[in-house]
């Protein structure tokens, strides 16, 4: 279903979504974050991309899995803790981040679904915002089958036009949101359609960063385990977690017990973010570390995204959002690395 919404009506519509918790881009210091909002009159002109992607809501940094208590009489006592029931609408999700959800679903909603992710996923309504102009100087979604107007993972995609939003309603969840205030939504005219198509064409032409021949990458990668490239490219790596923590698809976690009392023993088992870039991520109890250096950890990040994930799920675990490139304190550049990989195959 396609609709248009007057720019001035955006706030009216959002005001009708009283039953939902609303999230939208909020400026914090020097960047944008998805924070809870009470209203949304418009998307600011300088809104680019949030710092921490949507996974902060779907796969929070700390997820309580269950509580435990060593009850002396009744033995150990466990109680499952599920995410609270609340429907959440997130506005301004960029196509790359929405595609991230689709990739996360492959991991957490496949054969053995993760109930915590599932519940949060079901409760999240994604209202996207297409990218014109491009939000970042390192956007490269186009090289990975995405695009500035991609609708994957979204319930609604908004496109900011001259005086209206072009509204693509993509799922029943999207329809439900429209129904909250149907009087503000009109059928698009041909002119609206053209304007939208034109914006998409212009946006697609704006990309400066791209991977040449992404299809070549995974067969080449499988031959590059021992390549000196990893050592060269990782030399300046800091071993921090920025690239993975800000990635819309990275989802590795650690599970830890948080003890609130030792007598009687009480606490919570929680799932917290972890990353393959931390030296202790693969540390064995014996002290042996199969990924002992920065080279093997960088290799893991690239291989996981462009080889292992492809082998397991048939898709590349990267949406081309460019965060890891822009936010890396030492300029490690996945686009540059992938182009080097691709040229190895040439």
């Amino acid at each position, binding site marked *: 279903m396609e609709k248009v919404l007057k720019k001035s009506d955006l706030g009216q519509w959002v005001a009708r979504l009283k039953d939902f918790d609303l999230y939208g881009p909020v400026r*914090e*210091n*020097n*960047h944008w*974050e998805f924070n809870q909002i009470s209203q949304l009159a418009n998307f600011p002109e*300088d809104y680019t991309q949030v*710092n*921490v992607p949507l996974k902060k809501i779907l796969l929070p*940094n*700390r997820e309580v899995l269950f509580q435990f208590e060593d009850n002396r009489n009744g033995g150990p006592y466990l109680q499952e803790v599920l995410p609270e029931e609340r429907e959440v609408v997130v506005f301004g999700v960029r196509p790359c981040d929405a595609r991230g959800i689709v990739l996360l679903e492959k991991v957490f909603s496949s054969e053995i679904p993760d109930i915590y992710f599932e519940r949060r996923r079901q409760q999240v309504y994604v209202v996207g915002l297409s990218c014109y*102009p491009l939000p970042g*100087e*390192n956007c490269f979604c186009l090289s990975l089958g995405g695009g500035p107007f991609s609708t994957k993972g979204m319930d609604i995609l908004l496109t900011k036009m001259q005086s209206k939003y072009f509204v693509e309603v993509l799922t029943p969840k999207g329809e439900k949101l429209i129904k909250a205030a149907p009087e503000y939504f009109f059928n698009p005219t041909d002119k609206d359609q053209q304007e939208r198509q034109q914006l998409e064409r212009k946006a697609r032409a704006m990309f400066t960063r791209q991977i040449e021949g992404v299809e070549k990458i995974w067969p080449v990668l499988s031959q590059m385990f021992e390549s000196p490239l990893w050592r060269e490219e990782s*030399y*300046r790596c*800091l*071993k*921090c*977690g*920025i690239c993975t*923590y*800000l990635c819309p698809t990275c989802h590795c976690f*650690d599970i*830890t017990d*948080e003890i609130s009392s030792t007598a009687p023993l009480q606490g919570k088992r*929680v799932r*917290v*973010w*972890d*990353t393959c870039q*931390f*030296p*202790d991520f693969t*540390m064995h*109890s*014996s*002290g*042996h570390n199969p990924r002992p250096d920065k080279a093997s950890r960088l290799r893991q990040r690239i291989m996981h995204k462009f080889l292992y994930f492809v082998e397991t799920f048939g898709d590349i675990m990267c949406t081309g959002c460019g965060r890891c*490139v822009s*936010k890396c*304190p*030492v*300029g490690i*550049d996945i*686009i*540059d690395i992938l182009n080097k990989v691709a040229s190895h195959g040439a």
Partner: protein
Amino acid sequence: MVEVEKIREEARRLLQEGQVRGVIGYVRGPQGVWAVPAMIRNPEDVDRLVWNPTCVHNLVLFVVEEKKEQARQKEPDKRPLAVVVKGCDSRAINVLLQEKFIEREEVILLGVSCENSGVVDKKKLLNLVPSQKIEEIVYGNNGHIVAVIDGERRVFPPEEVLADRCLECQANFPVVYDHFFGEKIKKEAINTSPGVDKIEKMRLEERRRFWEEELSRCLRCYACRSVCPMCYCTECVVDPISFAVEPTTTAEEKAKKIKWIEKSPLLSENFVYHLVRAIHLAGRCVDCGECERVCPEDIPIRLLNKKLEREAWRLFNYVAGMDSQAPSLFSTFKETDPEDFIR
């Protein structure tokens, strides 16, 4: 003015003569103008070396990494490392010398003066010239920064684009070096930390609210810790597992690892993490400002270190990194140390 060709010449000579096993310097990065750290091992690569206002990184971190790497080698290359150091970086070298982490002979210091300027805060510059393509960033006159954008030179005064740490810096040339490039121009800092002033003027509840807002965003990506050349401990007190493990280490010994804080980025845990870090850096932090620069969440971490820097000076007349022979802040005392806070 620092002539990059002179740095290259020296680097080339050191490499050709086999005096060093490598030169740690700045090269142009994959995203165009922004420099990145690199290790140059061959004389033919020295032309990649650059020196410009985007050379923000404290390369002493890589001296630390190299030291650890060599310690793991069966046959370590004992030749020294050449490293390009700015004023703040050289003070970091002094702290490492003071703490006997490195010996003076292990490094050949190619000192560069920041002269009347400093390094660029990328975020500040990109706020002024958001989406345009910057082709080059160079030093202009009187500490000004020149950005070439679409072939056009745009001149920015230092206060608009320099990193805060540089605006507040009082020692903008190396205090220890083997070769020196540029001029020793003593710069007058207007205020060593307006940020600390601001917090000190706040009421207690305001300070708490300020830090709660800032630290609640901490993701615990540990970029601040990873980038710091002073955080060279084998194992950090906040690490959940023990790195000091060998095949002979018993389960009981492993169980002795203390969980000082939770791994979760809870506000309380973030507070303790950053406070521990600040205390551990007291008298050691040279204000290279890298922790704050790398923070993906723009948390003003420097303000914690700056506060302790201020207090170390006020209470003990101590400045970090000025003297590699002096005892560390906490490994000495004076009879006259203040104690009016003690009952």
